[in-house]
């Protein structure tokens, strides 16, 4: 196969990054974290909205509607990760990511056991309401979800 190599060119970004002025990495990160922290309230509202959206996705009534329902579910789960991730709500992220893993791996033309989505939506709600100290309960929920996903993924391989 023919390979055409375009010699390395210096981008504007490369030229400016080491130019005079600027900000130290420490200060830049501290400012960025402060700016992100200011969005916590907004993020929690998004998390709440996306869990509600997952709870509200109706089970598909036919193979034809399965694909669009799965897309809807996937979108809600990824938006949940977008909002929960920066605020270290990693349990929510793990649960949502597991659901995404499964949806990303299956063939939407085949029948899908919708109870998996229902279980994830309920588990996410539970994870959101459990106190932070309830580490054991959280771990148990995540373990159960992981087992469900692993079993289903094994069937798709």
């Amino acid at each position: 196969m023919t390979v055409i190599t375009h010699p390395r060119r210096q981008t504007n970004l490369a030229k400016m990054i080491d130019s005079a002025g600027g900000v130290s990495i420490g200060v830049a990160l501290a400012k960025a974290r402060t700016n992100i922290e200011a969005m916590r309230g907004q993020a929690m509202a998004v998390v709440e909205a996306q869990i509600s959206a997952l709870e509200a996705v109706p089970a598909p009534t036919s193979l034809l509607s399965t694909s669009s329902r799965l897309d809807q579910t996937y979108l809600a789960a990824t938006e949940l990760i977008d909002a929960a991730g920066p605020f270290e709500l990693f349990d929510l992220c793990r649960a949502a990511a597991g659901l995404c893993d499964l949806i990303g791996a299956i063939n939407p033309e085949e029948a899908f056991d919708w109870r998996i989505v229902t279980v994830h939506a309920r588990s996410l709600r539970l994870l959101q309401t459990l106190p932070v100290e309830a580490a054991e309960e959280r771990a148990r929920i995540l373990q159960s979800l992981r087992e469900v996903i692993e079993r289903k993924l094994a069937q798709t391989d």
Partner: protein
Amino acid sequence: MSSLGEALRDSAVVNLSGAVTMVIDDSAFALELASQALVGFGIRTRHACRGAAEAMEILQEQNIDLLVVDCEMPGINGFELVRWLRRSGLEPNAFVPVIMTAAHIRRTRVAEARDCGANFLITKPFSATTLLERIVWVARDGRPFLEIGDYFGPDRRFRKAPPPGPERRADLIRKSEYEAGKVSAAEEGEVV
């Protein structure tokens, strides 16, 4: 190319204030989050786009220094946008550093992610440290661009330097190492 660790010393100084930056994400929250992180780094997002079509119009008319684009978007997705940009013949935008972000990559999209021509893909959870690490890294990315069959983008082989370190939650790992160091120093009666 500077190593990643060296680039992110707290005392190291970077100047990104003049970077004409475009952020593309269909989620208003994610768009705002990325823009706020960039403001912290001294970068004002010049173009915040909710979709690829809007971004394409701007890319045809204005030079951009850095592109941060979400993978999953309705209509034209992030992979398709980057592939179009690399093949667009637009100078210098076709060669602009591109960082892609994704909350999740579908198994069926892995090849698309590798082959679209982006410089780097960040998987979430989002962290300011990871984003800044990648920006510094792409700014110093010395790989040539290659055209091989359908591919147009940076050489996908990392020959002169190893690929950057842990991609996810690097700041949390660092924080836990720091906390662990504090605990062990305290146990030994040292002052941290």
